[in-house]
């Protein structure tokens, strides 16, 4: 984190956390980002979204390091636990068969969810830890299920937020009837969730 943020008094740590996520120019993050951009920028010439390209695995190299700089948190303890959380969930599941029953019913639209492919998104950072989602996609691109496989629970406030938000977001994502190309919104948790989900969409 930048010196500016390091010098911030503890009392404004939360404010700093919010502000530090403002367009990070942190050199360390930047070099991570540069490495990633050079090594793992994903491009898939996937035909049409509806033309039968299956969701493929996410890049295992794009794990916690790029996003960990995003925490903007001066709290190294919570950052540490966030990292370990990311590590536990860190392995990308490439083309794995759907394992557990989906937490929500398949979307009413077309798509054979019986043969859906599970894809894990990149972890997306919040000040309280990473959010990471797993989507099951039918061969025609229909979203069969979305669930959070990692979300911050390292402190009480965060747990309160997420106990409510995460399951609801799970069902929300799977129930979209309208096709869309990108997402815009405003809360940390849902933004991170969206970011992780977007990383999956980007693989299609």
């Amino acid at each position: 984190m930048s010196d500016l943020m390091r010098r911030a008094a503890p009392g404004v740590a939360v404010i700093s956390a919010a502000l530090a996520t403002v367009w990070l120019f942190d050199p360390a993050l930047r070099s991570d980002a540069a490495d990633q951009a050079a090594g793992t920028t994903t491009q898939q010439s996937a035909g049409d979204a509806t033309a039968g390209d299956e969701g493929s695995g996410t890049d295992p190299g794009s794990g916690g390091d790029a996003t960990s700089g995003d925490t903007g948190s001066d709290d190294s303890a919570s950052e540490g636990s966030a990292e370990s959380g990311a590590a536990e969930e860190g392995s990308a599941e490439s083309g794995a068969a759907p394992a557990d029953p989906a937490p929500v019913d398949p979307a009413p639209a077309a798509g054979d969810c019986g043969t859906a492919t599970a894809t894990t998104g990149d972890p997306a950072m919040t000040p309280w830890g990473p959010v990471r989602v797993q989507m099951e996609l039918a061969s025609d691109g229909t979203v069969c299920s979305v669930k959070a496989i990692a979300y911050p629970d390292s402190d009480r406030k965060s747990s309160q937020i997420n106990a409510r938000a995460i399951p609801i977001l799970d069902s929300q994502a799977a129930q979209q009837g309208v096709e869309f190309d990108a997402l815009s919104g405003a809360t940390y948790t849902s933004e991170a969730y969206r970011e992780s989900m977007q990383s999956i969409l980007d693989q299609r």
Partner: protein
Amino acid sequence: MRRWSWPSMGSVASLAVPSHPADAMPEGVASTVDGVHSWLDEVEDALSPFRGDSDLCRWRSGRQALCDCSPLLGEVVQAVRDLPERTDGGFNPYDRRGRFDPTGYVKGWAIERAVGLLHDAGIMDACLGVGGDIQMIGCADTDRPWRVAVTDPADPDRILAVVEAPADGSSFSVATSGTAQRGEHIWSGLDLHRGSAISRDAGSALAAVTVAGPNLSLADSFATAIWALARDHPVDEAWQWLAGTGYEALAVGGEGWVRRTPGMGQFLVLAA
């Protein structure tokens, strides 16, 4: 749909370019995308407030003359000059220490300009977003404009709305400012007068505000301004300076109410 993603500006950049059977995609698209990377890096080198060697930091600390800095800095200084007035004081290009900090404008501007690079290279359909701020040109498919889902910050149970770009494929953008959003500086002028650092969610009546319109530099700046103003003013007051600009807004209150500008409806294909 061809998609690329890479880390950028502390978030993730997502670029989508449709592919069609008789694809008019020009050769060298990879080098064009590389050009977008380079552009965003160049912006960072020149305008980062977090890096002491950026042109912005050297200029504002008195180590380098503006005319000796990257022309990007001069361009941004010029561009934000009238934004406070245009937004009734809502947009404020200074950080809490009173130093010039145009970051709230720069992100949307950089994304918008990046899409301009794509356009200049012959890519007429594209959607580029970084951290939820999105600039689009052209269409997503032969019969479908680009669409952006806006999540409801007050009730994560649903997507609040789906915003659709104009059917003629003209430039369109969506930006959201909110309580915990990345990529914005939200300080009102009043904060500076009080001389205190007030968190962006302190006292605002809004949970989030989404602005849609042609260019992301302005959509992003306007969203920032509306959010900041809503701390002390009814959000409808912002509708007055927004009217006639070509930009429309949808605001979500802390208590869950939703207000939108009279013209916002033209962009909505799904609204709560």
